[in-house]
C-alpha cells in the first residue's frame, strides 16, 4: 500500500492548477460531495481533492506528480459502480474522466469505434445505429455508465452468453501508467504478439492504469429479436429449463430469470402481464436472421412446455417484446417500491446449481429475518439477489451485509465466484479470501506492483492485504473452500 503522501492538499492543488483549468481542480467540501461515493452509496469517503483533466497530457502530469509524492489516485467515470470501486481515498485524488466524453471515430466498414473513456455505454449504440451496428455489452446502468468504467469492471449485461463481456468486445486501450507513460495495449488486429495485457487491464478496477481511449468492436444489429416468456410453478423446473434450452443447441441473445417475489414486484410496476402465480419466470430472447429466429423460437417454446412450463408466451410484435422486457428492466426499482432500501448482490454459480442456491437463499432469508428477491442473468449463472432492508432500523444494514456475505460464500462453495460483473472494490474485498488462498492473492499483489510500483492506483481496493485474510477465514463458518467444487453439497 502507499506510504504517507509527501505533499499537502494546498501544494498539490497549486501544482495541478498550473496546467489544469483552476475551476476543475476542486478542493472545497461542498463541490467534492458528489464524489464521496459511487453507486454503492453505503461506502463513502471524502477525497483530498478532485481533478477533471481535459487532455491525455494533463492526465500524465497528474500521474507523475502523484507518483512522485505517493498520493493515491482513484480514477472515476460516471460513478455508477456497485462495489465502491470508485470510492475516494481520503488522502488521495479523484481523477474524473468526465471531460473525455467524445466519440472520436466510428468506422462502419471495420465495425469499430474509437472512444474517449467518458463516453456513455448507450451512446455508442445510439451513434452506431445509423450504420446498422451496435455495441454488445449492455450493463443495466448503460444509460449512465461509461466505457472507461466498463473496461475497469469488465462489464457484462443481459447479452453476455452470446455476445461476451467487455473483454471480448474491445480491440485496444490507450492508458496512462502510474508513472505517467502513455501506452497502447492491443491493436486494430486480433490476437497480437506476446502477453495479453489487454485482458489483464480489463476488469482491473483502476488498479493498473488510467484508460484514456478505448477502441471497441461493433456488431451488426440482428434482423429480428423475439422473446419467449415461460412461467414455472417451482424454481427447480425453471432452473432445469435454463439448461434445457442451452443443451438443445440454442444460445439465446438473453436468458433472464426472476423468482416469485420479483415477478410480482415487477408486474405491479410494469403491468407486463407476467404470470403472477409463477415461482420462476424465464425470459428467453432469440435474435438473428428471420429464418433462424423463427426456427429457434419454435424449438424454445417446445422445450419449455416439455420441461413443465405452466405458461408460455412469445412476443408477436416489437411493442410486446418491449413490454415483456420492461418488467425485467424495471425489476430493481420495482423491488425498491416494496422496501425502503435494497442491497444488490452479484455472484455467479454454475447453472445446474440455480435451484439449490435459490432454495438455500430462502432458508437464509428466514434465518436473517430479511426478504430477498432474485433477478438474474440465468444464461450465465450470474445472480443478483436483492436483499430488502430498512436502513433506519438499527442493525438492519449490518444484518443485510452478513446475509450478503453468506450468499457469496455459498456461490464459491458450489463452484462459482463472488462477483460476476460488479467487481470487488471495497464491498467484496473480504470475500476475496474465500475465493483465493494467500499465494494467489500475493500473485495478484505482485501483478499490481509490475504496473504500479509505488502502489498509488486505487489502493485498498480489489485485492485484500494478506493480514486481513487470515482473520476473515478463521471466523466461524468461514471455512476456506478452495479445493472444493463438486464436493460442496454432493
Amino acid at each position, binding site marked *: 500500500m502507499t506510504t504517507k503522501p509527501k505533499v499537502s492538499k494546498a501544494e498539490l492543488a497549486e501544482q495541478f492548477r498550473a496546467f489544469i483549468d483552476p475551476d476543475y481542480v476542486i478542493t472545497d467540501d461542498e463541490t467534492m460531495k458528489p464524489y464521496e461515493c459511487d453507486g454503492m452509496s453505503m461506502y463513502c469517503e471524502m477525497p483530498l481533492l478532485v481533478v477533471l483533466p481535459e487532455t491525455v497530457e494533463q492526465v500524465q502530469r497528474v500521474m507523475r506528480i502523484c507518483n512522485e509524492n505517493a498520493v493515491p489516485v482513484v480514477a472515476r467515470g460516471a460513478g455508477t459502480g456497485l462495489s465502491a470501486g470508485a470510492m475516494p481515498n481520503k488522502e488521495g485524488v479523484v481523477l474524473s474522466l468526465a471531460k473525455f466524453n467524445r466519440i472520436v471515430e466510428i468506422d462502419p*466498414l*471495420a*465495425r469499430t469505434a474509437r472512444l474517449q473513456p467518458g463516453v456513455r455505454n448507450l451512446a455508442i449504440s445510439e451513434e452506431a445505429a445509423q*450504420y446498422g451496428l451496435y455495441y454488445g455489452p449492455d450493463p443495466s446502468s448503460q444509460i449512465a455508465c461509461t466505457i472507461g468504467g466498463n473496461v475497469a469492471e*469488465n462489464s*457484462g449485461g443481459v447479452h*453476455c*452468453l452470446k455476445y461476451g463481456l467487455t*473483454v*471480448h468486445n474491445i480491440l485496444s486501450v490507450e492508458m496512462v501508467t502510474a508513472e505517467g*507513460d502513455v501506452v497502447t*495495449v492491443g*491493436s*486494430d*488486429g*486480433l*490476437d497480437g*504478439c*506476446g*502477453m*495479453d495485457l489487454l*485482458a*489483464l487491464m480489463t*476488469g*482491473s478496477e483502476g488498479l*493498473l492504469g488510467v484508460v484514456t481511449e478505448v477502441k471497441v468492436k461493433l456488431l*451488426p444489429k*440482428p434482423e429480428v429479436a423475439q422473446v419467449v416468456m415461460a412461467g414455472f410453478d417451482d424454481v427447480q423446473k425453471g432452473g432445469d429449463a435454463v*439448461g434445457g434450452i*442451452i*443443451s438443445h*443447441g*440454442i444460445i439465446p441473445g438473453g436468458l433472464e430469470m426472476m423468482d416469485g417475489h420479483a415477478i410480482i414486484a415487477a408486474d405491479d410496476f410494469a403491468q407486463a402481464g407476467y404470470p403472477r402465480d409463477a415461482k420462476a419466470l424465464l425470459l428467453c430472447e432469440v435474435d438473428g436472421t428471420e*429464418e*433462424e429466429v423463427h426456427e429457434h423460437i419454435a424449438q424454445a417454446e417446445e422445450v419449455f412446455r416439455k420441461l413443465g412450463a405452466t405458461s408460455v408466451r412469445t412476443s408477436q410484435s416489437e411493442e410486446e417484446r418491449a413490454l415483456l422486457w420492461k418488467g425485467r428492466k424495471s425489476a430493481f426499482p420495482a423491488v425498491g417500491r416494496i422496501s425502503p432500501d435494497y442491497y444488490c448482490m452479484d455472484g*455467479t*454459480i*454454475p447453472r445446474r446449481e440455480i435451484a439449490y442456491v435459490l432454495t438455500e437463499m430462502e432458508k437464509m432469508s428466514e434465518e436473517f429475518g430479511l426478504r430477498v428477491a432474485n433477478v438474474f442473468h440465468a444464461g*450465465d*449463472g450470474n445472480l443478483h439477489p436483492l436483499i430488502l432492508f430498512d436502513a433506519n432500523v438499527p442493525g438492519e444494514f449490518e444484518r443485510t451485509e452478513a446475509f450478503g456475505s453468506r450468499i457469496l460464500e455459498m456461490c464459491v462453495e458450489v*463452484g*462459482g*465466484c463472488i*462477483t*460476476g*460483473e*460488479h467487481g*470487488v472494490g471495497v464491498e467484496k474485498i473480504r470475500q*476475496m479470501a474465500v*475465493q*483465493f488462498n494467500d499465494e494467489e*492473492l500475493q*500473485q*495478484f499483489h*505482485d*501483478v499490481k*506492483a*509490475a504496473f504500479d510500483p509505488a502502489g498509488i492506483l486505487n489502493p485498498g481496493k*480489489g*485485492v485484500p492485504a494478506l493480514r486481513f485474510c487470515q482473520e476473515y477465514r478463521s471466523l466461524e463458518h468461514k471455512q476456506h473452500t478452495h479445493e472444493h467444487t463438486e464436493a460442496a453439497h454432493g
Partner: protein
Amino acid sequence: MADISQQLKEQVLQARESGHKLNIVGGGTKAFMGREADTDAGTLNVGEHTGIVDYHPVELVLTVRAGTPLSEIEATLAEEGQCLHFEPPHFGAASTIGGTLACNLSGPGRPWAGSVRDQVLGIRLLNGKGEHLRFGGQVMKNVAGYDVSRLQAGALGTLGVITEISMKVMPKPAASLTLVQEMGMDEVVHYMNSRAAEPKPITAACWVDGKVYLRLAGAKSGVEATAEKWSGEVMEEGDHFWRQVQDMRHEFFAGNDVPLWRFSVGSTAATPKLEGNWFIDWAGSQRWFRGAGELKDLEPAARAAGGQVSLFRGGDRTGEVMHHQPEALKGIQRRIKNAFDPDNIFNPGRLYSWL
C-alpha cells in the same frame, strides 16, 4: 489420463534450487514457434498431464488438464453435439490444449466465435516459485482478481506452467455451407468486411489464390436463406477446405524454405505492398505472408495497417520473432515476468530475447 501435477511441481522446485532453466513441452508440435529454445535448459514435459477433469454439457463448460490432446477433447465434446468454437489448429495428433492457449492459436472462425483466449474461464498455473495456483473459475462471468488466465494467451509459457484449463464450449452449428467466387486481392478486403457488417450467419471469410471463401453456419433455414441472397457458388467440400485452413495444411502453408509471417492488422487495412504471396483470413484481420525479409523491415508495413507482425514459421529464429515492443510496455512485461517467475526458469528467451 493422469494427474502428474505433483511431479511437475517438484521438477519446478528442483530447477529453482539448482538454478536450471526449463523448456515447457506439451505435445511438441509447436516447437517451430517463438524464438529458438534454450538448448541448455531441461525439459518439463506436460504432455502426460492429461484427462478431462469436469465436463457438464448443460453448463457449456469443460475443465481439462493441459496436456490433453485436442483430438481427445473434441471427440468427447462431439458426443454431446458440442465443439471448441475457436477451431484450434492441430499441427499433429499430439497438439494439446495447454500449448494452444500458451500460443493463443485459433482457427478461421475466430472473428465471430472468439479466440482460445476468449473462451478461457479459468486456469491452474504452476509459477516459478513452484506454487500451484488457481485463477478465474468454471463460470461464464468472474471478475474477482486480475485476469491471469487470459494473460497466459500468447505468453508462450514464459509466466508459468499451465496445468489445467476451464473453458467455454459451444453447440456445434446445425448446418454450414461455404460460398466461393473469384475475386482480386485489391477488392476482397472491402468485400469481406461488407459481408461481415451484415446481420447474417457468417462464421469465416478468407481469400487465397484469387478466390474468396465465405462460410455460413447456424440454423439450417438461416444459412440457406442467406446463401440464396449472396453471390458465389456453394462449395462441395466446404468443411474439408476450412479444416485445411484451420490446421494450416492448405498448400499455401506448405514447405519451410520461405518464411511464413503473420500480420495481425486492422480488418479493412490495405494489404502491404511486399514481394511475396498472401493468404487473407479472418475477414482481413489476419494476413499470412510468405516472403523473405527481416522483421524490422516488415514492422512499418504492419504498423501502417494498424497492427503487428511476427515470424510464425521458418526464417531466422535467433533474433526477435515478435513485433517490437515500446520501452514502457517492455518494462511492464519484464516486471510481470519477474512477478510470476522471479528466477527466470520458464522458456527463457522464447518470446523475446529480453524476457
